[in-house]
């Protein structure tokens, strides 16, 4: 087989993969849902993936626990990427301080379950999400009147302010941080302890699935359209009756809430947080996840988050060069797929087929 044949084969399979979602969408209802159920089931089996032949060799993280990687990194990064994708990918607002919301989520759990009160984790979560959301609104209200670079710079500052404040405030534990944070409650056979990471993984995956479900609803509504319109041409959107500020603020608030939610999962898992867990670098990594996956594509965000969370651990064998390897891998992806692994697609208006049908039926009725 010649080189060009190989290349053709490769591009073909890339197309096949990126067209997969569409094909599944075209399937009849029953087969579609069974496929989706099967897929979700296989995700819940992820802790056992390293034991599968080939796949195991591909995904396993030598030198560190795979289970640990998928709970501490992959799940968290995927959730964060989903939230950040709403802000950056859908509404087109460059937020470089997203780690701030993640930190707020984690710190609220820390404060309420250990530092200043003894509330259970499950009670802390909704409070943390609401506080993160409010923080998003507070940051967004003045800054969303800014555009482009200005917004990026202000949000960058926000992320740092949160971290530095936590470092300097004794009531937030200062640089020592907060320990003995509450863990999620046991659910039947799922015991959230220190030995077994799986329950945390199942919890995180479930949260991700629920988040995806609701984000899809938003995307397929007036809200999603408004976000897209703002990203494409903010002035034109406003002149077509889109209350742009309101919807930008919503994007910010929802993004912040999801970031905060990821923070609560993190805090509940590691049970010890300090300001150095929330560096600026993490914001950049989150952006990298969204861009790598495919800005504006929710599935892209999921893949991007997973890859950015997992890959540095996969290359742990390279010891101190692993970040370099990770960087090279990122650059390669961006060279060969500049729109990300799963680029944003032009929406496929499935209902149009039905609409045409209805029209022609109507026409026949009129003629008859």
């Amino acid at each position, binding site marked *: 087989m010649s080189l060009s044949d190989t290349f053709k084969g490769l591009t073909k399979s890339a197309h096949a993969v990126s067209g997969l979602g569409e094909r599944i969408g075209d399937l009849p209802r029953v087969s579609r849902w069974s496929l989706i159920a099967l897929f979700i089931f296989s995700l819940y089996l992820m802790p056992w993936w390293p034991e599968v032949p080939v796949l195991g060799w591909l995904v396993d993280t030598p030198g560190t626990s795979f289970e640990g990687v998928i709970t501490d990194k992959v799940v968290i990064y995927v959730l964060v990427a989903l939230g950040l994708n709403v802000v950056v990918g859908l509404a087109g607002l460059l937020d470089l301080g997203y780690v701030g919301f993640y930190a707020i989520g984690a710190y609220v759990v820390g404060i309420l379950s250990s530092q200043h009160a003894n509330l259970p984790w499950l009670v802390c979560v909704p409070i943390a999400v609401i506080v993160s959301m409010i923080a998003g609104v507070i940051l967004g209200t003045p800054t969303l009147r800014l555009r482009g670079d200005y917004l990026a710079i202000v949000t960058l500052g926000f992320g740092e302010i949160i971290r530095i404040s936590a470092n300097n405030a004794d009531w937030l534990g200062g640089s020592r941080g907060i320990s003995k944070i509450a863990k999620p409650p046991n659910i039947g056979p799922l015991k959230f302890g220190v030995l077994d990471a799986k329950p945390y993984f199942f919890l995180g995956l479930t949260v991700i699935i629920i988040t995806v479900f*609701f984000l899809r*609803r*938003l995307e*397929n*509504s*007036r*809200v*999603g*359209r*408004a976000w*897209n*319109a703002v990203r*494409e*041409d903010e*002035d*034109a*959107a*406003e*002149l*077509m*009756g*889109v*209350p*742009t500020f309101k919807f930008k603020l*919503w994007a910010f608030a*929802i993004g912040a809430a999801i970031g905060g939610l990821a923070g609560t999962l993190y805090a509940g898992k590691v049970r010890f947080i300090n300001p150095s867990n929330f560096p600026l670098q993490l914001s950049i990594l989150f952006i990298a996840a969204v861009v790598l996956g495919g800005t504006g594509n929710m599935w892209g965000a999921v893949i991007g988050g997973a890859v950015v969370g997992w890959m540095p651990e996969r290359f742990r064998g390279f010891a101190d060069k692993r970040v370099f390897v990770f960087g090279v891998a990122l650059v390669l992806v961006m060279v060969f797929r500049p729109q990300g692994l799963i680029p*944003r697609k*032009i*929406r*496929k*208006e499935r*209902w*149009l087929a039905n*609409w045409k049908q209805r*029209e022609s039926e109507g026409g026949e009725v009129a003629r008859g």
Partner: protein
Amino acid sequence: MADAILSVNNVTMQFGGVTALSDVNFAIERGEILGLIGPNGAGKTTCFNVITGVYAATSGSVTFDNQPLAGLKRFQITKRGIARTFQNIRLFPDMTAVENVMVGADANHKTSVGGALLGSRRHHREEREGRDRAMELLTFMGIADRAADAARNLPYGYQRRLEIARALATGPKLLCLDEPAAGFTPAEKQELMDLIRKIRAQGYTVLLIEHDMSLVMGVTDRIVVLDFGKVIATGSPADVQNNPDVIAAYLGVPDDAA
């Protein structure tokens, strides 16, 4: 004018040292097609921008439906019933044609985050309404065959029509078209003018900017002529055509020679 839907009252618009509009006065009557013409740089687009709230007039006011528009946000002005197109096409390029129009239709919708998350009844009704309205308008504009294509991939003529469909979807009382036939062949222009007449026949009031004088003569009921930011003539197409100031402006004859 008793039944003016929109009136522009003593509007002056300055950009630094440039006076783009100077003490402009005119009114649009309900149900008419008013032409706004003038040479390059006369201030026509600026006039649109003041009406639709893109710029706040340096002085003067705009009244729509007997209410002043001052202080309203741009999207609020649209919701009051003024929609526009752009001289330089400004569609949402990566969204499909039908989605572009649905964004316009959403100006009449109320579903927000809560309704979308819960999949409220109103959300479903509005989605259906939006789709139906969008397809109806695309069909009316004769571009429904490309409804599912990204706006950026549409031919130029389709893009121009799509802008009109999107503007109509907002449910305007007044439709402002900024050189909608720019770049068209004479035949295409004629077709578009017929379409504009049809739009008016459905009860819309139309404010039409057009460069091509002869074209405007055919469709408009009245014409306002701008030159260097000033209204130099207002009247029926025939009157305006024979107005020496207008002829001078168009032929570039200096004022004192006219």
